[in-house]
């Protein structure tokens, strides 16, 4: 049996209330909220968070990592290798980007399902447009990770599907541009409608299914109007909430996020359909297996949607670089050394500490010398999943940060070890000594175009 072994959806903590756009700009916006990646998140860090959730639900180690995004951190070098490092995947696991459009993400899932590999398919995106635009309002930020493989631990069996491909320009973005342009909506609505009907019929046919066999279908794509107008015409009885009202459309991440959301509540035997409108239409069916009953998602999508804090519109604009604010009058951090980062990959990306074999004392960062003077008598201890307590904290309004002030805590880990580190996803007035935290992979800053990744703590909510 081949299909999904485990999965993880990641929804960042912050939400923008769309009505704030209207209040500030006098136009744009709308009802509901959209998800917002924090200033210290990008598609790589969100991909890591989704990947961690997927790998937490399985003992399986992937031999391939696919990373998809429309808003990758880098071009001309691979983004997936950073995700690979933070997930501490083996040297022999390949890491490949599949970038450029939402279709790349669904194509990566196709490629994984149609191969014989165990593949971790990660997609992450940050969607925005010019202030007041439809893309700004409808967009969202998030990530998804699907662990694809074979065997008895498959929780959602791949039943196959169909695709309808076509060349039509309904949205486009030139390389280097931050936002997209759109053709008038009716054209795309009609074309997508025709393609969806064709792909759906072909998929049912090729899989030997009837409409009534399908328990639930998620229909997603960046052409919101086409989805709204045509999803109900496919003939499926139950169309899943596409979550856009509360988190927006997370682009490349959204098909995986909706599949994760459906699997969170699927029962053995359920057939779920994933229909993606992206430069053509792709339909894929999965059947929940008996194994899904024993699979508990570490952090269900619904729980992350419920766990949210707000971000003011102006701060959202500054986080996206649209509104440039005055930084503290301190030197901007210099770029990290590539060679230093390379040799310290275990620490920088994997948060691997050392523990003295004699005294059991923990060292973050890892140390070679023991308190008794012994050298290299340390065990390596992965700390990324450790839980800690804030034993002291401060708010630093002087230090450079892409989004001052810095909330900084002395974190003492439950299993031993201390790390003074920045606390993410908090407002300065809500931190208390004694609060529990977990670790999260973040982008500390960008220096000379190099994204400097490391870990922060975040409240255990």
């Amino acid at each position: 049996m081949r299909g999904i072994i485990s999965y993880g959806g990641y929804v960042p903590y912050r939400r923008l209330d769309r009505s704030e756009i209207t209040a500030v700009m006098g136009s744009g916006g709308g009802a509901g909220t959209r998800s917002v990646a924090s200033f210290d998140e990008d598609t790589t860090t969100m991909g890591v968070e989704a990947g961690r959730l997927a790998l937490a639900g399985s003992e399986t180690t992937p031999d391939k990592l696919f990373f998809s995004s429309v808003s990758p951190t880098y071009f001309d070098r691979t983004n997936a290798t950073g995700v690979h490092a933070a997930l501490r995947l083996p040297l022999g696991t390949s890491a490949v980007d599949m970038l450029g459009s939402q279709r790349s993400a669904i194509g990566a899932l196709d490629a994984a399902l149609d191969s014989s590999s165990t593949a971790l398919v990660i997609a992450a995106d940050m969607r925005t447009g010019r202030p007041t635009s439809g893309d700004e309002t409808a967009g969202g930020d998030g990530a998804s990770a699907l662990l694809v493989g074979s065997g008895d631990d498959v929780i959602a069996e791949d039943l196959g599907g169909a695709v309808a491909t076509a060349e039509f320009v309904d949205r486009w973005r030139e390389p280097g541009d931050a936002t997209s342009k759109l053709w008038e909506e009716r054209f795309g609505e009609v074309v997508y409608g025709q393609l969806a009907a064709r792909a759906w019929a072909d998929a049912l046919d090729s899989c030997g299914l009837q409409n009534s066999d399908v328990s639930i279908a998620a229909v997603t794509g960046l052409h919101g109007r086409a989805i709204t107008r045509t999803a109900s015409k496919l003939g499926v009885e139950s169309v899943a909430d596409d979550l856009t009202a509360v988190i927006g459309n997370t682009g490349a991440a959204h098909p995986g996020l909706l599949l994760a959301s459906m699997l969170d509540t699927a029962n053995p035997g359920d057939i779920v359909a994933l229909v993606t409108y992206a430069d053509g239409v792709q339909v894929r069916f999965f059947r929940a297996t008996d194994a899904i009953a024993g699979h508990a998602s570490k952090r269900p999508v619904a729980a992350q949607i419920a766990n949210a804090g707000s971000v003011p519109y102006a701060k959202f604009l500054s986080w996206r670089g649209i509104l440039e604010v005055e930084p503290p009058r301190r030197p901007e951090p210099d770029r990290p050394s590539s060679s230093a980062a390379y040799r310290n990959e275990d620490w920088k990306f994997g948060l691997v500490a050392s523990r003295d074999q004699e005294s059991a004392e923990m060292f973050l960062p890892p140390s070679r010398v023991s308190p008794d003077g012994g050298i290299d008598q340390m065990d390596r201890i992965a700390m990324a999943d450790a839980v800690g307590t804030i034993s002291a904290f401060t708010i630093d309004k002087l230090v450079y940060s892409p989004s001052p002030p810095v909330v900084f805590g002395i974190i003492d880990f439950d299993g031993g070890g201390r790390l003074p580190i920045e606390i993410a996803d908090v407002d300065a007035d809500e931190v208390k000594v004694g609060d529990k935290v977990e670790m999260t992979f973040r982008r500390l800053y960008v220096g000379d175009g190099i994204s400097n990744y490391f870990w922060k703590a975040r409240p255990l909510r």
Partner: protein
Amino acid sequence: MGSHGIKDQVAIIGMGCIPFREHWDASLDDLLIDAAALTFESAGLAKDDVDAYWFGTSQSAASGLALSMPLKIEGKPVTRVENYCATGSEALRQACYAVASGAYDVAMAIGAEKVKDGGYQGLNAFPIPHDGTKRSLTAAGMYSLILPAYAQKHGVDEDELRMVVAKIAEKNHYNGARNPLAQFRRETSAELICSMAAVAGRLSVFDCAGVADGAAAAIVVRAEDAHKYCADPLYVKALAFVSGTGSGVTDPNYDFTSLPECKMAADDAYAQAGITDPRSEIAMAEVHDCFTPTELLLMEDLGFSEPGQAWSDILEGTFNLDGALPVNPDGGLKAFGHPVGASGLRMHYELWLQLRGKAHEERQIDLSARERKLGLVHNLGGYPGEMVGFVSILGTEVD
């Protein structure tokens, strides 16, 4: 093995200190030339009379050339010294050891920092290539962790403790107002400081040392030669230095209510000098008040206050100019600003003045009740949990 010190083997026979200011019109060379000139004049010597130089600067220059070139020191060794914010004291320590060893008859320690050409606020570290995982926090942020930790450990109300440390700033500004070399010469009140906006934790800008350019220097000789140069030299009783393991930032047992490196350095210094009760034996102290909570902890780590009692001693005025043990009578880092390479020598300069009765009458401490005229300098570099600590003791007489 053991730390034996060089008690009464070396004496300071001349010192100089230029005004600490935003010297927009002076280069590092100018600061060095002026401080050295004052010091040569103080000792009645010329540059060729000095056999070897130790030059402390944190990041204004590199190598001995930065001193030998502007001063045109010919054919002499110049060692550039750096040890974080204790750089100036470290230069003095090295010069003293060189003389004590017999290698040189006369040595100069000079420290200087040209901070204000950087264009940024505060002190900023020279960038060393790194892997990008280093802690991102200002020194103010790290030291701001002390207040809530101390309040909790010793059961002091946090608002009251905030006022206590503001009293430290008030005291140091009061002293600095009576010192023409200080950068800030205006008194301020603890109440005003408490009403200011916080910049890190509960600390306001006035809880932080200022930033200034400055330079200071000392000339040292063997103790037995001191009276050839100077009628009232200062004898080196102790020089102690501890470089920490950084355990405070990795060990959950560290609670930010003590600066262990400084306590260890003080213990070593007291042993070298033969001091058993520092509070009664020390006439005055210059300590590293980089942030007001630092001075709070130091009163306990240096043995001036019992653990948990510094806050009440401060409220009682123990460390005021007219108190039992005046601390930072020159105004400290608070009033002087902190040109890193110069500060340690500036602290020693105040002992040079006070212990010999040469401070300005407005701030000269009363030494009449003292049997031994001993002063202490404490200088540190780094952060709580990860620091270097220096303590020296100087006196007017050989025991």
